[in-house]
């Protein structure tokens, strides 16, 4: 372990506080020794337990089967130790380096200056051992994240704060930028809202039907359960996963973006950098209407890539607010996209013939920074798109629309799920939009670029440090 010195420290800054561990000086560090165990997950642990039980129990099998069991256990153990030994990381010259692999060695470099956000993920097993994984997201490029799995929870927290401080060019010992809590989703409300989704209602109807059947004809109910148990179990698992993922979701506003913390078994703390948000969608399902609830989703820029880590990222991008009142949603949207347009205009009355169900929800509005569209058949869907993020504008006119002299305008963004569609407008209006919107988008982009040249947030952080 090296001396706790930090060459990256700018001269004249206050000396770092006593350090929990030395690391950023530049020596190679290893992850926590239990990392392979946690990473391997439940499957391997189950196998190990199954193999251990006969070895430890009094009824011994034959010698050869014992030897096989011991051999497999040894192999798993050696494999884990090797994978722990060959994985190491260090911070050196403003770059975080992670090396791993014995036969196929990989070495990844993450320039600290490009770090956009550092997320903390703690699966259930990691929480048992008080471990945490750090996920370092780097701006631009492939959007790939660096993983440090696993460190002890305290170590992870300290390292996160330090890496963020280094990436912002302030003293290493600066605490992580303060955050302002915006809201927490109460578990009861989350549970009720999940039970009122399409899947939830399907499950409840099925269970109700089974109950009735069990009273009327117990034999038939038993048969039905034995046939449909797997499907039913799958439904329950799916609903639980949603509950687990969004449990006690807390949204906080920090200097580097929105911070979301959530989770019942697996907890995670993720940061969504504001600049990466391509669109926000608000969904108001029919079944939630009596409560006046809605869901907010954000869409972030993403390259088409595969892998587990990407899936997790997609999950994080899904719900900004799994369930909340309209006032909460409005406050949250306003904190991400300040200054949204208020005015909306409805489509011409003849659009009713083309979209009879959607018609009552159709509208759109825009100012010089954002566009908003509403649509949806049974549930109302509202999409907000910053004009500076629009990649291209399309006019689409189907055969029915042509008869009615209607046209739709699509605003394409780099997000995956959300893109705003100005549906069923008068053809002349659509034509005018197609002419004007690209110019408006260009102007919005120029304003945004100028804002980025002098980012207020770094200055903000430096001010807080003084």
């Amino acid at each position, binding site marked *: 372990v090296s001396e706790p010195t930090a060459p990256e420290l700018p001269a004249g800054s206050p000396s770092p506080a006593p350090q929990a561990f030395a690391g950023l000086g530049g020596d190679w560090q290893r992850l926590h020794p239990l990392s392979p165990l946690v990473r391997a997950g439940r499957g391997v642990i189950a196998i190990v337990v199954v193999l251990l039980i006969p070895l430890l129990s009094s009824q011994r099998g034959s010698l050869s089967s014992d030897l096989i069991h011991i051999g497999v256990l040894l192999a798993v153990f050696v494999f884990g130790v090797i994978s722990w030994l060959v994985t190491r990381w260090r911070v050196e010259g403003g770059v975080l380096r992670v090396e791993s692999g014995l036969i196929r060695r990989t070495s990844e470099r993450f320039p600290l200056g490009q770090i956009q956000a550092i997320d903390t993920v703690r699966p259930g097993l990691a929480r048992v051992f008080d471990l945490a994984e750090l996920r370092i997201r780097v701006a*631009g490029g492939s959007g790939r994240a660096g993983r440090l799995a696993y460190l002890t929870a305290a170590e992870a927290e300290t390292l996160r704060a330090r890496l963020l401080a280094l990436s912002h060019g302030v003293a290493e010992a600066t605490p992580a930028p303060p955050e302002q809590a915006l809201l927490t989703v109460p578990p009861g409300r989350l549970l009720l809202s999940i039970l009122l989704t399409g899947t939830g209602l399907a499950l409840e109807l099925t269970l109700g039907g089974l109950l009735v059947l069990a009273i009327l004809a117990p034999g038939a109910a038993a048969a039905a359960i034995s046939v449909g148990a797997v499907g039913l179990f799958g439904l329950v698992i799916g609903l639980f996963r949603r509950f687990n993922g969004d449990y006690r979701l807390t949204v906080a506003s920090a200097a580097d973006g929105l911070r979301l913390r959530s989770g019942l078994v697996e907890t995670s703390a993720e940061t969504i950098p504001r600049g*990466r948000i*391509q669109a926000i969608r608000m969904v108001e399902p029919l079944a939630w209407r009596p409560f006046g609830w809605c869901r907010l989703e954000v869409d972030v*820029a993403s390259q*088409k890539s595969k892998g587990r880590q990407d899936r997790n990222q997609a999950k994080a991008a899904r719900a900004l607010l799994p369930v909340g009142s309209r006032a909460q949603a409005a406050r949250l949207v306003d904190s991400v996209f300040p200054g949204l347009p208020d005015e909306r205009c409805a489509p011409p009355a003849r659009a009713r013939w083309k979209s009879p169900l959607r018609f009552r929800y159709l509208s759109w509005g825009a100012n010089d920074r954002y566009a908003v569209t509403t649509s949806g058949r049974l549930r109302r869907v509202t999409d907000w798109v910053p004009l500076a*993020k629009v*990649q*291209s*504008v*399309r*006019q*689409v*006119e*189907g*055969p029915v629309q*042509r008869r009615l002299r209607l046209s739709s305008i*699509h605003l*394409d*963004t*780099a*997000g*995956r799920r959300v*893109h705003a569609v100005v549906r069923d407008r008068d*053809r*002349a209006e659509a*034509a005018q939009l*197609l*002419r004007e*919107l*690209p110019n408006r*988008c*260009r102007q919005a*982009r120029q304003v945004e*670029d100028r804002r980025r040249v002098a980012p207020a947030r770094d200055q903000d952080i430096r001010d807080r440090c003084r």
Partner: protein
Amino acid sequence: VSRVAEPAVRGPLRSIVARMIDEDANTGASSWSSPSPRLRVLRRYEVAAGTLASLTLVIAATLAAGATAVAVAGAVAVIAAGALADVVAARRVRAWGYAERADDLLVRRGVMFRRTSVIPYGRMQYVEVTAGPFERAFGLATVQMHTAAAASDARIPGLHAVEAARLRDQLTSLGEAHAMGL
């Protein structure tokens, strides 16, 4: 497209002219370029090849079953379908068009669903030129523009190979001049 005073045209032409004026007003583009006329020939060959293949199949199958009357009827139906496909293909070829403006590229396409895309040069991540074996035989190529948004990917098929290369270079250099991030 020259501007024609609307009331001067009557009959079926009227809607076509109205659409032309409409389109002009639509986009503010005065000069639409279209794919090479050879694309029309290529599409005709493709339709003919398809018709011929299904014709052979239908006649062989019906004659093997020994139904001559059905074979004749089937052949007529296939040829009629081929002729219809040729007309549709012609309209679809005619619908393709693109216009290079100061800051963005316009691409229009489609007969049933008419689409007009506006793609700012600065948003283009890369431009791709592809030419399949049949296109190559006709000296044609397809130019495809990619932006960060999956939905906005636009392509222009059936360009003369020289024009495709010119468009690619033009778009690339304009893209660099206007470059911007996500």
